[in-house]
């Protein structure tokens, strides 16, 4: 986990490439987040929140921060199934070819009527807009996106 202003301590050792077991990585994230007072117990820690586009039951998937079209092309060629995509911008175009496979979207800007919100509604892909992350998972971490309450909430998966 990294704060928005720090570099990720696991950036060079992604468990997604098999370097560390996911559970180990998740526990380290939880420990670090608890130490900074953000978390309660392992498995339900709130990492961030924003505005949900529509009400939806919690879903779990693999966190992926997508920043460049090449990131999307990679998923288009492999699979975006089970992915919780975190994106900065609220345009509808960036995720277009993989939207139907995504488990959820976390957008760090915009509102539910931004284009990406409109598309998520049509696809019924749970989406959190204008999300603020106190701590950001590493790519490959299991997270839960919960749009069942007043806010859209991102947690470490139980």
């Amino acid at each position, binding site marked *: 986990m990294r704060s928005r202003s720090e570099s990720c301590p696991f950036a060079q050792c992604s468990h997604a490439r098999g370097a560390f077991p996911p559970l180990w990585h998740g526990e380290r994230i939880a420990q670090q987040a608890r130490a900074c007072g953000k978390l309660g117990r392992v498995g339900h820690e709130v990492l961030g929140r924003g505005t949900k586009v529509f009400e939806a039951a919690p879903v779990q998937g693999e966190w992926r921060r997508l920043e*460049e*079209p090449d990131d999307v092309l990679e998923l288009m060629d492999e699979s975006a199934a089970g992915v919780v995509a975190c994106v900065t*911008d*609220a*345009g509808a175009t960036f995720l277009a*070819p993989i*939207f139907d496979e995504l488990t959820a979207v976390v957008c760090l800007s915009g*509102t539910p009527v931004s*284009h990406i919100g409109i*598309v998520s509604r049509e696809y019924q892909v749970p989406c959190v807009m204008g999300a603020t992350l106190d701590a950001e998972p590493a790519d490959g971490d299991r997270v839960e996106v919960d749009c069942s309450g007043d806010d859209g909430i991102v947690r470490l998966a139980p």
Partner: protein
Amino acid sequence: MKTDEVNRWIEYHGKISRAMTAERTALESALIPVTAYILIACIECYRRYPEMMQEITAATSPEALGAAGRSPGSQIDAVHLWSIANFPLLGRQVLAPFGLVDLDRDVPALATVLDFWKRAAGAFRADGELQAWDAGLRVPRYGPDVVDALVAGSRTAGDEERRHLIRLNRLLTTFLFLLYFDTRAGYQDTGPYPLADGRVLLVRDFNRFGVSHFPWSRDICAELPYSNLTFALVLDGDVRVTTNDWGTSTTDPPDYFDHLSAAGVFTADDGALSPVAPDELDGITHTVKDAQRNLYRRIAGMSRREKLDAGAYVYFTFLRPFAETAGVDDRLDWTVPRDSLDVYEGLATLDKMPDVEADDSIPYYTPVPETGVAP
């Protein structure tokens, strides 16, 4: 239109656009430089639309053009109408701080734009209002003849047909955003249309997604079986529907497909509205999905300059459906960039709209100066 009337319409658009923009806020995409090409295009619109509108008006009245938009398949619609008024105003707003507004031309140019918009918008709606904002978020684009035909051609969908309908709707939604560079120019909702039996009709038009004047459509869209599809979504009477002038609908409850009473898919490719057979939907979906993947690769492979110019072209040609309907599109120059070259390089590097503290005491669009002082 005199200066005071120009200022009334500037204030009118400013209030509405400020409120609409505040709801949406973000424009950017990691795929394409949205902010930069919007600003470049809007400057082109401010500098070129007035003369182009005069040429269009010389061929066909704005009232006739607005009325032509009340037929399915036309791209004279609420989104294009909002845009042809607001793009020049936004372009002027960008130029003003640099002292690049030509004061001798400013009032007559804006008068031409606003007069064209006002006459066309009134005829398009035909309900005495000019925009959805004035009318409780309703866009009554279609009259009783079209509404009756859409409802008569809709039916209760079985589970499989419903799945195909939803899947095609989703694919077209993202594909049209992509084809039109993150604008609503190709896909939009109108309504609500209350029906006599208490249900409500929401109409979703996907327009011009076949081969068009967009260079990137020529091979990408060649295999698509249709260019225009209209979805008639008849919803239960307890669903509340609103639509705005950006073609966005909201429903309460949000998942309107759970409250779908009947549905139909139609095309206006041959002019008249004709039904698309339900067993075609799945095949169309697969074709659109392939086209979407190919288009994404195409756009991702463009240079930043190519993306800028393509996006600016999409925005600048919001006036083109009016010119086409008037039969003068071939006489007009749609080249972009052309009249923004003095600011192009500076704007081309922008990645996002500058963060500006909202101040409601400052007009969203600067009024025309009564004294001749630069805005």
